[in-house]
């Protein structure tokens, strides 16, 4: 397939699973946006997986995430994007992009990482959990061959991000853990091109791959789905303890980390859970990790529930504030005052946000412009 010019890319973007949306794309830009190749050539997406162990009888054990799937020949793991072929394990989604957007970094959300930056954001198919409230289930809960995809190898990815004035590449929407080989290669190419890389993940990953990932990227946002094993078991199909381990490991690696907690009415919205979470974050990670309480909207298999009442989010924030966390936000409620960042010392507004727009940043050399308190994050 020839390189797609902007028109061809936007045409592809109108397809169900290949949507581009951003102000950046809307501007006239004659240079090719997407030097893509046809997804008909399956072989280009297939690379040997990095984290697995060979077992007798052509079986393998995947060591990428805590599930440790043991997989027979010709079968796939739980995530559906990694396949055993004759006793060798392969990722089927290297450079196999199913959606790409140019988003504000606040949309991820990262509130302490280059405010106002735009991120070239992309995903492949697949996920290693199955959250009943998933907003992106049409790409996360499918096999790669069930959605239209484009070939975007690491060097081209970095080139496109640069051409579109995106200082950041974000691996997001589905679950970057299951396409970690691509993330690692993409992050390397991005670094060589002077770009940063961020990951938005559920944090369901083993320690070794996590350490490799952390060394390659610049920030990671973890979706902590709840602070109860029951929720993880019944709604996520996973285990909370592994995600908590991930957060502790991240703390040790030093990579910038923020946490989002999607508040689902009746399922993870008790005072005890909010308090337990806030106490755990403070004691294990420290008070400076940004914690975002986000509003749920009915999706996928939880369409029977209402959106989160704003008062519930405010209650969660009040509890976390009272426990001593310094940066507690409310998300998915555009215009709410708790979208902005306040200095924990002088209480002045130091990043003024409305929705995804930044009205002002009052941080200088990583310090509050008013009282000079150090504000954790990546600001330049």
């Amino acid at each position: 397939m020839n390189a797609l010019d902007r028109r061809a890319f936007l045409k592809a973007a109108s397809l169900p699973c290949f949507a581009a949306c951003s102000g950046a794309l809307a501007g006239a830009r004659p240079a090719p946006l997407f030097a893509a190749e046809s997804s008909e050539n399956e072989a280009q997406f297939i690379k040997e997986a990095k984290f697995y162990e060979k077992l007798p009888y052509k079986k393998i054990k995947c060591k990428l995430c805590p599930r440790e799937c043991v997989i027979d020949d010709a079968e796939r793991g739980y995530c559906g994007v990694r396949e055993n072929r004759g006793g060798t394990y392969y990722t089927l989604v290297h450079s196999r992009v199913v959606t790409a957007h140019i988003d504000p970094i606040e949309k991820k959300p990262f509130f302490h990482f280059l405010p106002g930056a735009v991120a070239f954001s992309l995903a492949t198919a697949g996920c290693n959990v199955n959250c009943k409230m998933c907003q992106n289930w049409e790409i996360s809960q499918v096999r790669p061959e069930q959605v239209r995809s484009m070939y975007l190898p690491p060097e081209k990815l970095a080139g496109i991000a640069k051409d579109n004035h995106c200082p950041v590449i974000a691996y997001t929407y589905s679950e970057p853990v299951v396409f970690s080989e691509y993330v690692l290669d993409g992050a390397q190419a991005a670094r060589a091109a002077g770009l940063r890389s961020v990951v938005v993940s559920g944090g369901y990953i083993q320690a070794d791959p996590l350490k490799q990932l952390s060394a390659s990227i610049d920030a990671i946002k973890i979706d902590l789905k709840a602070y109860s094993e029951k929720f993880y078991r019944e709604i996520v199909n996973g285990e909370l303890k592994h995600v908590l381990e991930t957060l502790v490991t991240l703390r040790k690696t030093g990579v910038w980390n923020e946490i989002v907690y999607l508040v689902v009415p009746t399922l993870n919205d008790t005072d005890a859970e909010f308090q337990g979470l806030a106490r755990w974050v403070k004691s294990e990670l420290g008070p400076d990790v940004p914690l975002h309480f986000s509003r749920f909207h009915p999706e996928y298999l939880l369409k029977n529930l209402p959106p989160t009442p704003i008062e519930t989010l405010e209650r969660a924030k009040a509890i976390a504030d009272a426990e001593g966390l310094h940066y507690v936000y409310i998300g998915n409620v555009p215009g709410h005052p708790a979208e902005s960042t306040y200095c924990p010392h002088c209480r002045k507004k130091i990043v003024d946000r409305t929705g995804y727009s930044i009205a002002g940043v009052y941080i200088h050399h990583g310090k509050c412009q008013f009282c000079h308190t150090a504000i954790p994050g990546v600001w330049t």
Partner: protein
Amino acid sequence: MSSKAATRRSFLKQSIGSAAWALTAVRGLAAGSPSTVPEAGRSRVVIACDPRVRHAGASFDSAQVAKLLDRAIQASFNVDTPLEAWKRIVRPGEVVGLKVNCLGGRGNATHPELVEAITERLRQAGITEIVIWERQNSDLERARFKIVEHGQGLRCFGNDTLGFEDDLSTFGQAGSRICRTLTSVCDAVINLPVLKDHGIAGVTMALKSMFGAIHNPNKYHSNGGDPYVADVNMLAPIRQKLRLHICDGLNAQYEGGPSFMPQWMWPFNGLLVARDPVALDYVGWKIIEKKRAEAGMKPLGELKRQPTYIATAADREHRLGTCDPKRIERVEI
């Protein structure tokens, strides 16, 4: 079917291009269609075995396979001729899907010889449109089936040809898109699983084979597939269209499944036929346990691989059949 197998006269006779096989319109299940609901009281599972189905080597004698099928079907419906039985299963004018199981490749997939015999009998029962289907075209090809996506009469293709419904079907823990072959093409489905062990679920036969009808089977192997296997079989399009289960036990596998492991195969030389998939799976499971015991292997329960989903499929929420041995009529011929 491999090109070699496809040269069989009978297969070609029924294959694409037969003018007599008019393409019928897509339609729902006709009112008053034959039912698969187990008769009140007991569920019959016929076990038909005959070593004559096997040639001296690993191949099978098509004529003997057809004879074995006839005996099994006749016994299953307790009628005088096989044709009478087939006429109870399908109605002229229906598009009939044959869901084969090809994951194990040519070593332990549904045999084309059996599929060939079924298509012949369906034709005799007045069926003009048959679709052989499975997860993917590549699965079918590995098991010696030839892909025929277009035309009239007999077609054969994987779910990759028509894809999946956009909307989810849900029941219990299952939320899946169902393949359009089942929802939009077939009026009735005959399930043709294989008698074999499964490394996670314990065994895989009639119930688990329906994972081949959904877009996300990889999500449903936790906890040995329980309750997912039962829940998937409750999804309305699947439950409404399944008419009969014919489990291919010409070759069977008692360990190392679902992949083909020749060291654990044995020549069962038989078929299991039932309208009740739960009863069929229960009987098949016991056959595999018996073989494991003969081979000095531990029971599946001791290996934490007991197929508990079979009992779940029989419980109050599912009622897909029975796994109570007192309510299963086991007929050996």
